[in-house]
Structures are given as C-alpha cells and as structure tokens.
C-alpha cells in the first residue's frame, strides 16, 4: 500500500525561513530511518505560498489569485510518499516523526490506477499517459 503524508506549513515555512539546524538534523535522521527501512519512495518540500497561486473556477470564468494565502494551518509545506504493508504500519511510522507543538500531520492512502475501476477508461488512461510523458520531458 502506498501512502501520502502531507506536512502542514507554519509561519516560518511561509516566511521562507529554513528550519533550525536542530530540527533539520532530526528530520534528516528520520528520513534516513525511512530509507533504511525501505519505506520512503519519494518526498519533497514546497516553496512558500507567496510563490504559488490559486485558480478559482466559476462556470467558464477563471480567476487567478496570487499567493500568499492566509490560512497557514491548511497549507501544505511538503509531502512524503511511503510504501507500507498496512495502514497501521504507516501510522506507526508517522508517530515517530519529529514534530511537536500541536501540529497535525495528515496521512492518506494513495489510489492506485486499479482503484478507479471502470471510471478510468483506456482512452482516459492513454490521455493521462501522454500528459505524464510531456511533463516528464519538460
């Protein structure tokens, strides 16, 4: 089973400040544990929302809203993708992450193509594939 862990942002990450050496060290060690246990497949940190944007959809209208966004609690600052044997194992790993201060970190199971069943027709699959290839070659 594959999981995504969504790490929320905070005022520091939104200000583009790097975490302290201590936090970075703890996080590096934790990442190393995940790698050495064969759990970590991928993971990235995200730039602050000031460099991002939102697009609002209303009928045919598209409104672009530039960052930063204010609801810091609901912002994502990074993610991991994990391979685990069960939901319980993923939770057990997440419990070991070096967070604190009441932060809530979200764990979600990733759909694998087959979970979509009939809804993902061969044509849609092919279209998805083309898009992926284009984005990979960019």
């Amino acid at each position, binding site marked *: 089973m*594959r999981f995504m862990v969504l790490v929320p942002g905070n005022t520091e990450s939104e200000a583009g400040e790097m975490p302290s050496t201590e936090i970075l060290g703890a996080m590096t060690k934790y990442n190393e544990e995940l790698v*050495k246990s064969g759990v970590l497949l991928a993971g990235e940190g995200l730039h602050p929302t000031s460099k991002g944007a939102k697009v609002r959809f209303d009928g045919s209208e598209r409104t672009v809203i530039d960052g930063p966004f204010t609801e810091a609690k609901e912002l994502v600052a990074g993610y991991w993708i994990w391979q685990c044997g069960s939901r319980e194992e993923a939770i057990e790993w997440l419990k070991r992450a070096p967070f604190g201060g009441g932060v809530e970190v979200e764990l979600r199971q990733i759909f694998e193509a087959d979970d979509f069943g009939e809804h993902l027709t061969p044509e849609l699959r092919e279209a998805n594939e083309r898009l992926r290839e284009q984005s990979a070659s960019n």
Partner: protein
Amino acid sequence: MGQSATHRAIDAVWRIESARLIAGLTRIVRDVAVAEDLAQDAFVAALQQWPDTGIPDKPGAWLMTTAKRRGIDALRRRIALERKHALIGRELEILSQLDQGDLVTEIDDVSDDLLRLVFMTCHPVLSLQARVALTLRLLGGLSTPEIARAFLVSEGTVAQRIVRAKRTLAEARVPFELPGRDELAERLSAVLAVIYLVFNEGYAATAGEHWTRPALCDDALRLGRILAALMPGEGEVQGLLALMELQASRLRARVGPDGEPVLLADQDRTRWDHLLVQRGLAGLQRAEQLSGALGPYTLQAAIAACHAQARSVSETDWPRVVALYDALAALTDSPVVELNRAVAVTMAYGPEAGLELVDSLANEPALRAYHLLPSVRGDILVRLGRHAEARQEFERAAGLCTNDRERELLLSRAVACGA
C-alpha cells in the same frame, strides 16, 4: 482502540522492529536461534501488555529491554534448575553476554548488525531454500505460515527448514561478521540471488493458480531497498534494486481482468507504475556511476529500462537490447540469457536470425524442461508464417509449464495457430 485494532498496531510495530531487534540480539548472544527466541518472547510480552498499557513511546527500545530482561530471568531459572548437571556452560555464557551487552535500537547503531544478519541468513553454508526461508523470516518479518503460502509448501516444511538452517549456522560456527574484502563479491552475490529469487517467485510464479503474486514482489523490493540503503556504494546492489523497481512497474499490466497473463508486447503501457519507473531509472543511473564494468543485475536493469522508456514494442531500441544481452551473455554464460537474446535478435534483425539462435540452443541440457524454449520458438515460427509448427511448439511448452495461468495462455496461443 479495540482489541483487534491494537493487535494490528502491534503487528505493525513488529514488522518495523523485528529485524533490527533480532540483529541487535544476535550481536549480543552470537546465536541467531537464541536471538530469535528472545525477540519472540518480547513480542509475546507486548501482545499481553500493550492492549492494557498502550503502545510505548519507543516500542523498539521497549522490546529490546524486555527481550534482554526476560532472557536473563529465563536463563537464571534454567541454570538454578540444572545446577546439578554439567551442561549449563552455554547458558552461563549467554547469560553473561546478555548482562553485559548494550542495548541499541537506533538505526544508526543497528545498521551494521542488520547487514551482518543479511550475510548470515544468506550464508553459502545453507541451501538456497534455507537461505530464502530464513531471510524472509528474520529480515522480512514474515511468519512461517506466510512463507509457506508464498512457496506453496506446508508450514511444517518451512518450520523444519528454518530450524535446520539455524542449527547449521550454529554448527558451522558462522560468525556474526561482515565478509572481508576478499570474499565480499561472492557473498554479496549470494545475498542478491536470494532477494531476486523472492522477487521472481512473485513476478512469475513457477507454480500454482496465480500468474503473479505482488505481495512477494513487495517483500523483495523492501529487502532490496533496505540493502541499497545499507550498502550505498555497491553498484550491483543498486542495480538489482533498479531491476526490481522497473520490473515491478509492469506488475499490474501483466495480469488481465480474469487473472490471465498479459505479455510485454500486449501490455497496456499506460498502466505501468510511473513512480517505480522513475525510481528504477534513477537507481540504474546510480548503479552505472558506481560500477566500472556493469554487473549482471545492472545490465538486466538497463534492458528493463529500454522497455520502460519505449512507448510500444515497435518503438523499443531493440539493437541496444541485443547489445546489452551480448554483454550479459558474456558475463553469465547462461542458456536462459541466450534465449532472451534470441528474442531481442528477432525483434531487431528479424525472425530468421532469431530462429537460428534458438535452434542452436535446442540441445542445451539446462533448457530441456524449460517451457519458454518451445514458447519462444513458437513465437518466432508464427512470425515466419509457419503456423503448424508453431502450434506444436506452443503445445509442447504448455506440457512443460507448471503455472496454471501460463499454461492456459500457451494453449490458447496454440489454438490461435489454427489446425
């Protein structure tokens, strides 16, 4: 948390902790059988206590402390009981080792122990079957019933294999050490062979009613990822992992809606797992940078990468695949590799050239009962329009095949050749 939820959580902790627990204990007591017993005792204690107390903050440290404490208590009792007998030397030795051994569960400290355990469970003094069973049990954290299901043998057989393997290791006094420079290459290739065997049994089951068993591939991938992290400088370790990631990326496209096998040429490539393809390609690059001359796993990963990067069979760089098989054949001297090379030659240079190669393998003793020899020959004959002969080859292949679903596929190909 309900009772069963707690048990599932404890199982998860066990899956995470068991290998390093056993590795750490083996370093202390120098005997993998004793270490596993101690670890199991601690696990039983967790199953008894954690439903009431909750899972401790540092479950790994808890298990290690408990294993050590309970081990010491049990040994003291046994020594007190057997005081009259002279046969308590080994117990006393283990007792003092446990008393003095330091408890480590942090991954930094336990990495070397894990690696020592890998080399121990894959030691050449053991039969290949024993290495596989012991590795899955001690490093993969699989239970005896799980291993039995994976290899379609009885639980009793697996249990016996594991007991004998541990006894063999003790009798041969296999040390809990990393192999020296002079024997590293050979010992490492034994480890890689065990992991790849597990993977292949999941990728193309040799027997049974299922064509693939993805859970076994996952177990092998996990072992491969752990080893790749523990030995980041070994090209072939990275090469094997890259090979497995690339092959696993095709797993869900290899099986049709009714469980039937789907061969590479007929696979819906949009169903390949792109995260695994990406990881495989990156791993291959690492392997190539680490190695001077590419080893057999890295070469096979490079071949898998040719397929992973092609949009279709016709757009595959077949001359490159042939060149890579040439290099692989020179390294391995394996008739199975020659057979694969014949397939690539057929695709690159036409069926006549391929048929010539396949026919040169007709008398290979190692291929006499190998169903893929007639299957490949049948495939080439179809391309040459020689359908009646092709039909015979597919039928012969079906007769040799031990996997139910694959046999059905071969028979249907025979029928497709017409009367």
